[in-house]
């Protein structure tokens, strides 16, 4: 500074000045470069992750179907086209499907073993799906019509190329005879790939070709409803009290520290707590969305409170003063000025903690939400297997087709998370404009 020349033009053109400038530019460049490299790394990892998940999942979004000309002789149905659902359920659809399959592959094989192998081409669930369709449309009775029924998971893997059909018989689960048959059906144009609506609309099943996530989605929705109903009002009330009313003393500081610590407690601990309190002490039903939702509330409450407090604290003090100057009481100030202004932040916090809860698995395992659940829960007390738990169960299943299903379910879960975050952003903008 002291030896800086009097003449500024001289200084700004001097070598020392230029060295300084160059050094600053280099430093800025290095910093920018580092930032770009780290972003590039993050993007690469993200793309790899999504790429591998989508690649894995690609065969789960199609269902391999076999077209069969199934005859539904009226004689089999008590009451013919007038048959009620109960009468239809009594009919031997397995036999009808088997007959149709034999017919299209050149007749009923003589050996039992060959028959079993042939029947293994189609899903064990095919006869149920046929039954469902007949119940829906009893006018089909007495006719022969073409039904597209799901192929078994092994055939699905062969047709979709997941399993190479050219390897030797010993190295695959399907026999040469089965491959022969499926190729004959392919030649007849009786094998097709359709969008796997079953994945979205059906419940879990032991058979991967028809297993779906519907029950999981319903379970998750019920559970999150409980979580939202419990943790939003409690969280906001706690935040309002702590920010606006509580005296600032050692006790409230202790509470504050505890809340922050709770937010960092491993989620499985909350599962243990829920097991001990809600199930053991209060005797609530295991595996139910009610208990699951309460367990997740314990988990989300700290996050909710912290987010809501931050949103409330961010409301400019001048607005509180303005309301008070106009004769608003403390309560009116909070309800008419502070909360509406904090709402966008509170909503964002809520949705983000709900998204967190949606992806949570560990505490749910503790409260017994791991069981195989065949039906979607119809109340808060029915057993449920929420989406992340279903992903977990599928990922541990031995059937090869479940690997793709797992990836597909993860995509659906990610989609929900994405939608929730988008909703958070949308709501934030909207509410901000409105107030």
């Amino acid at each position: 500074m002291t030896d800086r020349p009097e003449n500024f033009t001289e200084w700004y053109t001097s070598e020392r000045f230029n060295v300084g400038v160059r050094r600053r530019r280099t430093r800025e460049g290095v910093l920018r470069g580092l930032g770009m490299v780290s972003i590039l790394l993050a993007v690469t990892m993200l793309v790899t992750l999504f790429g591998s998940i989508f690649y894995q999942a690609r065969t789960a979004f199609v269902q391999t179907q076999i077209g069969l000309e199934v005859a539904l002789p009226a004689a089999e149905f008590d009451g013919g086209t007038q048959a009620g659902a109960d009468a239809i359920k009594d009919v031997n659809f397995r036999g009808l499907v088997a007959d149709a399959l034999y017919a299209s592959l050149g007749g009923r094989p003589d050996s039992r073993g060959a028959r079993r192998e042939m029947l293994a081409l189609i899903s064990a669930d095919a006869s149920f799906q046929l039954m469902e369709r007949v119940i829906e449309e009893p006018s089909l009775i007495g006719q022969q019509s073409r039904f597209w029924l799901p192929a078994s998971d092994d055939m699905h893997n062969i047709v979709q190329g997941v399993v190479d059909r050219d390897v030797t018989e010993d190295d695959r689960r399907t026999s040469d005879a089965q491959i022969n048959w499926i190729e004959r059906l392919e030649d007849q144009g009786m094998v097709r790939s359709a969008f796997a609506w079953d994945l979205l609309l059906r419940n879990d099943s032991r058979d991967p070709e028809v297993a779906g996530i519907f029950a999981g989605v319903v379970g998750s929705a019920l559970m999150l409803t409980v979580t939202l109903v419990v943790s939003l009002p409690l969280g906001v009330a706690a935040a309002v009290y702590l920010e606006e009313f509580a005296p600032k003393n050692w006790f409230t500081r202790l509470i504050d520290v505890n809340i922050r610590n709770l937010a960092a407690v491993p989620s499985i601990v909350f599962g243990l707590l829920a097991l001990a309190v809600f199930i053991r002490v209060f005797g609530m039903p295991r595996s139910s969305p009610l208990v699951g939702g309460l367990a997740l509330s314990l988990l989300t409450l700290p996050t909710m409170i912290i987010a809501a407090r931050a949103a409330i604290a961010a409301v400019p003090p001048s607005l509180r003063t303005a309301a008070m100057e106009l004769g608003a009481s403390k309560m009116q100030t909070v309800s008419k000025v502070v909360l509406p202004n904090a709402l966008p932040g509170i909503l964002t916090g809520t949705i983000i903690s709900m998204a967190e809860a949606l992806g949570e698995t560990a505490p749910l395992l503790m409260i017994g939400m791991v069981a195989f659940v065949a039906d979607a829960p119809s109340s808060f007390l029915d057993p449920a297997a929420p989406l992340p738990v279903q992903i977990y169960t599928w990922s541990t299943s031995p059937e090869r087709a479940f690997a793709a299903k797992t990836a597909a379910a993860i995509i659906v879960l990610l989609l929900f998370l994405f939608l929730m975050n988008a909703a958070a952003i949308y709501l934030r903008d909207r509410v901000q404009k409105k107030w």
Partner: protein
Amino acid sequence: METTLEKPETAPDRAAAGHETKMECSEVNVFYGDFHAIRDATLNVHAREVLALMGPSGCGKTTFLRCLNRMNDAIENSRVTGRILLDGQDIYAPAIDPVHIRTRVGMVAQAPNPFPKSVYDNIAFGPRLHGFVKGRAEMDQLVEHSLRRAGLWDEVKDKLDERGTDLSGGQQQRLCIARAIANDPEVLLMDEPVSSLDPNAAAIIEDLITELSEDYSIVLITHSMEQTRRVADRTAFFYLGEIAEIGITQDVFDNPRDPRTVDFIRGAFG
């Protein structure tokens, strides 16, 4: 009463004759923690007068003003002692609800603080809160009336739905004045209400002040001597938390008696 003044005759007394007292403050002290911000302030606010508070920045004008509607209650660490009466009633008495005091003693804060709501909702906030307006038509009328009095109507009549915070600084200042008078207070405290207004807009506010003083008492903080001369019936000079001098504006300006006031006035006109 004026323990801090050398001249006991410099007093509300000088002007008090024939005046009805609206607010009476005696020996008011304000502390922020250990900091003694107001020392033994004693003054009266008359009914239907404009009282100007003047003094160097940081001398405690805003602090004193906030005592009059108990807004100091909201400041942590602050403590007020002494007696302040509104129509003979102690506003710091335990039985008194500060919220009620604030509906009677309105305030326009030093920095404009409109709500991030529409212009309309800003004005309607107080009336809705206290429920003294029935129906949309009556509210529309009150909003228009308040905005007109604050000289803002012509500028915002087409954008009543726009956010108050999107107005210009000067417009926000007038919006806050309109919002305060929509509440129809008995005493109006105004903290530098025209600090960011052009001379025309300031003149409108000055006219408003004069007009309002026909019904209400107004306590006005301002740094402009000219403005004080134009609108204030009486003027109080604050200096480092003390009231240096108080009297009829013309009087104190033309022959100040306290050396601190003399310096201040000379500095301002100097």
